[in-house]
């Protein structure tokens, strides 16, 4: 009995001691990890302030420069430092309450630097836009003053980012009594006081409404449902639809998301509110391939093209690429206008291999971009293309005239040229009017 009691006592003590040891090591481990996280946040913030200080320096120096070369170098440096500042912001816990105005400013500064750099390099006589430069410089200076104040506070009063993060999570919004958060909000507020940098407002890809918007009327939810059923009527003749649902959506192209619940999976499509055009479609149909029902790929292409003709009245289509998987075929099509392939008018169609039904479709690009086009004059003859190409290119093939999207929501008429250097293949687009090399794509 005595031995037993002794053993029990030893056991109890051992239990108590091990629990203490375990708790202690857990707690100290947690502390170490928390410190690591806090350090990462501190680093990100300090990096942010450093990069933006460099940006301010370069902006101020550019104001006094008379050398194209130096200005170009400073623009490149500004572009690089803004990118780094944006990366640092992405590592701080701001998501629930973003610094929208400040981030917009940085985006504009980067855009300005890139554009100015390109014109300086082209030496096309475009002067530095000193008005914008001054405007941007003031704004960046304001941001830096706020950041300096905040940094000082954080460093001298040992403010914690982890604490801010915890408050953001707890109060699920911007906490009003956290000085880091307040400092940042104040900074963002100052930036928003400045009038919109209007030149970039136009150049940025604002989603403007497509051409056909003006000439049509809005449809009702019922009409959307009817339209949807009509568009896929040939697909659903052996399918039992037991219910339907229409949900309004207020995205870039306002519309109705129509879902048909069937015995062969749900069919969901989006019909635009204006003019009732089909935007995209997904059919979660089970695809069961057996030995006998594998659809021929030629039938599938024909089917896809018929569908596009029916939905959008497009006849002149060119197949851009095809993908073959065990369950379905996918095709990418673009429109052809007067013999010119227009890449912005893009479609994607997916056909099931067991019964040839359309199980996926996306025509968003086509809807946004397709329009009546008047093409620029072709001033470069095909025979002279080689003058505009890199002499090291071999196996050069001119594929023809195409239309490609360019920056600032424009479209340019170009020659599409295939070429190779060694083991690398390229697609090169040469402007058909000016001969300028617009774009190079690496073919993989």
């Amino acid at each position, binding site marked *: 009995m005595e031995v*037993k009691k002794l*053993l*029990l006592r030893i*056991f109890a003590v051992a*239990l108590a001691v*091990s629990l203490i040891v*375990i708790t202690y*090591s*857990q707690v100290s*481990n947690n502390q170490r990890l928390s410190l690591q996280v806090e350090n990462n*946040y501190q680093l990100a913030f300090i990096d942010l302030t450093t990069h933006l200080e460099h940006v301010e320096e370069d902006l101020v120096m550019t104001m006094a420069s008379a050398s194209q070369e130096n200005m170009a170098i400073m623009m490149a440096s500004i572009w690089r430092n803004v*990118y780094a500042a*944006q*990366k640092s912001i*992405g*590592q701080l*816990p*701001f*998501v*629930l*309450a973003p*610094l*929208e105005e400040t*981030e*917009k400013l*940085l*985006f504009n500064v980067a855009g300005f630097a890139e554009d100015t750099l390109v014109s300086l390099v082209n030496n096309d006589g475009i002067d530095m836009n000193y008005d914008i430069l001054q405007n941007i410089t003031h704004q960046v200076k304001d941001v830096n003053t706020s950041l300096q104040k905040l940094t000082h506070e954080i460093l001298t009063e040992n403010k914690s980012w982890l604490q801010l*993060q915890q408050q*953001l*999570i707890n109060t*699920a*919004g*911007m906490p009003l009594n956290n000085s880091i958060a307040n400092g940042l909000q104040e900074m963002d507020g100052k930036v928003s006081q400045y009038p919109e940098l209007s030149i970039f407002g136009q150049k940025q890809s604002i989603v403007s409404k497509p051409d056909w918007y003006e000439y049509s009327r809005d449809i009702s939810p019922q009409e959307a449902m009817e339209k949807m059923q009509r568009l896929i009527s040939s697909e659903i003749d052996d399918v039992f639809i037991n219910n339907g649902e229409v*949900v*309004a*959506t*207020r*995205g*870039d*192209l306002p*519309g109705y*998301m129509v879902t048909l619940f069937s015995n062969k999976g749900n069919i*969901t499509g*989006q019909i635009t509110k204006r003019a009732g055009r089909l935007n*995209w479609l*997904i059919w*979660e149909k089970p695809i069961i391939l057996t030995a006998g029902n594998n659809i021929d790929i030629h039938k599938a292409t024909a089917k896809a093209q018929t569908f596009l003709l029916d939905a959008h009245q497009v006849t002149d289509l060119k197949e*851009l*690429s095809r*993908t073959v*998987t*065990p369950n379905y075929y996918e095709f*990418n099509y673009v429109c052809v206008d007067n013999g010119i392939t227009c890449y912005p008018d*893009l479609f*994607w169609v997916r056909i099931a291999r067991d019964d040839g039904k359309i199980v*996926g479709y*996306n025509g*968003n690009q086509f809807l946004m971009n397709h329009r009546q086009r008047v093409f620029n004059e072709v001033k470069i003859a095909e025979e002279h293309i080689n003058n505009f190409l890199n002499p090291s290119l071999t196996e050069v093939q001119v594929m023809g005239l195409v239309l490609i999207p360019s920056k600032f929501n424009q479209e340019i008429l170009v020659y599409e040229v295939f070429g190779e250097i060694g083991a690398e293949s390229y697609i090169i687009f040469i402007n058909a009017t000016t001969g300028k090399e617009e774009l190079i794509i690496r*073919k*993989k």
Partner: protein
Amino acid sequence: MSNKIYLTSLLVFLVVLLVISNGFGEERVREALVIGDFGEDVKSIQEILIEMDYDDIKATGLFGLDTFYAIKSIQENNDLEVTGVVNEETISTLIQSELEEIEATQVLDITDNELTILAKIIYGEARGEPYQGQIAVGAVVINRVLHPSFPNTIAGVIYEPLAFTAVADGQFYLSPNQESFRAARDALVGMDPSDGALYYYNPAKATSKWIWSRPIIKRIGKHTFAR
């Protein structure tokens, strides 16, 4: 009697010790499928194997010996580490052998790694959701990459602190299934069932006042998508 009590409590103590000590080694997160595992994940893998002409596999959802040997042979044919364990590399290889290469019609130019992490975030955040809801989650990531107020890379958007709950609570580290890879790929070729959304939330669970103030675009499954 007291003998029994003593022995039982000793046993309990040892078990507790074992469990706790396991808990503070590395964070235990399931990263790979091994022989003996059971579930939908395993079933999808088996379905792919069957499509690849491994005839003696049955899609039971139980990772048995047949599946084990099939995985090993795939790993061998593709110069992977031949372990019979289905890790991320193995899954990507399985998916790649089903899908062809992604063409230049992608909205973003990405690498295989980025496709994988896009599939992981979709799986972590939206598995079980209607297929267009899964694509929509991927589309939100892509919309953020292209938007000035967010990081400029897929990884940057996904790992941004506090951005995605799946990243914060470890669900991001589960192995994505075939459906997530398909949804990721569809999002990359420009499908956007969310119509340009930058945020989404589960209205039954979201507590942030700020997120409720964002203009709503639509609802798909259990997620509301907003600008």
